[in-house]
């Protein structure tokens, strides 16, 4: 079993310390492509989390049977098979959800963070830990996606949560927040360059925050005098 401390440190790792979107900078392709509004961003994040949890659990479960030399091909095989199974099963049995997340599933297969977590963590840890790690990493990514999506949607269209009716049906349309009424729109924010710029600003903010926290910590503990 897993102690509370381990659990907490896994989540800290995934959400903050090794955040895939801001620190590891893995899987940027879907991150940049799908973060043009909050609803898309959230959907992609959740789909990625789901796929990562499943693939990390599976990889961890078979880790003792995989010789080191062929671990990458085996992991790729497992992930690809699993993602295809999820894709087909969602299409057949939870069609409304598939209509929403379906286009993202093939995108996720190409996402290197799934393989990265399988190789870096799941291959060396027990299944429960691996699944929790994958969920934490996925949620970390989701968080960055949502922030990025919010920035781009707000700057680009002046709204938040547009397209939510595609998720919750027509009556959810009133949930769309027109934060800036009569906004003319700022196309750059919605197009790919906007994604790069917004992500750059997010990473810079994160780094600045970390540097400041470090500085404070250093100031609080007086350096021992050199003798």
């Amino acid at each position: 079993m897993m102690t509370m401390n381990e659990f907490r440190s896994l989540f800290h790792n995934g959400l903050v310390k090794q955040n895939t979107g801001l620190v590891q900078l893995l899987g940027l392709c879907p991150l940049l492509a799908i973060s043009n509004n909050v609803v898309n961003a959230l959907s992609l994040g959740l789909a990625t989390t789901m796929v990562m949890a499943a693939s990390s659990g599976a990889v961890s479960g078979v880790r003792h049977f995989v010789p080191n030399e062929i671990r990458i091909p085996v992991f790729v095989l497992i992930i690809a098979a699993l993602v295809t199974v999820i894709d087909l099963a969602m299409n057949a049995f939870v069609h409304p959800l598939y209509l929403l997340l379906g286009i993202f599933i093939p995108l996720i297969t190409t996402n290197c963070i799934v393989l990265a977590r399988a190789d870096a963590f799941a291959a060396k840890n027990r299944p429960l830990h691996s699944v929790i790690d994958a969920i934490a990493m996925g949620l970390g990514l989701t968080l960055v996606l949502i922030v990025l999506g919010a920035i781009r949607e707000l700057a680009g269209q002046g709204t938040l949560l547009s397209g939510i009716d595609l998720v919750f049906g027509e009556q959810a349309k009133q949930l769309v927040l027109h934060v800036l009424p009569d906004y003319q729109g700022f196309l750059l924010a919605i197009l790919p360059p906007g994604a790069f710029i917004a992500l750059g600003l997010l990473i810079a903010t994160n780094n600045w925050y970390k540097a400041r926290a470090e500085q404070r910590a250093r100031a609080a503990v007086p350096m021992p005098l050199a003798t």
Partner: protein
Amino acid sequence: MNRQIQVALKNALRTGGILFVFALVGTAMLAFTHDRTEPVITRGQLEQKRALLSQVLPASLYDNDLLASQQSVPPDDLLGTRKPSALWLARRGGVFSGVVLEAVAPDGYSGDIALLIGIDASGTVTGVRVTAHRETPGLGDYIDRAKSAWIDQFAGKSLNAPEAKHWKVAKDGGHFDARAGATITPRAVVKAVKSALDYFARHRAAFAAPPAVKETDA
């Protein structure tokens, strides 16, 4: 020396064997899932297609199985198609009552705009939907029914109403609205719908001819 080769060979065979087992299990998993999900997925796709068709051609117009009436037509400049496209013939009581055409507006702002156009027997548009496009998000994508009701203005139009010279966007002196800042996209769509009506006028006789093969009614 000989012994080393033997060990290496044994090792290679072992890892190869393991990889093979994983591949086998993976393939079996996929085959099983595919086998279980395929009928459900096919049914879902047909359902979706039917729903889309009913958006451009009111269900009250026909009593045949529209999906079963699908025909393939060769590429045609009036349809804007470069590959064979599909059309669906609607009949009520065995009499031709309308058609749904697949058409392409080739001159969108970013490439092809795929359209589905419903036309009734009198040559009046019953509905138009964009099925695929790459127009700029937030600018030209209002042609998509999911984004705005712009595309609804085609319903009820025909080659005579408005007359040919008014089959343009308002900015060009025509009859159809277009939003400021994005004129190329609606211009392409208006042109494509007009051409599809021309196509219909040219082929109406063939559409109205009784079906060559007996259709199985739904």
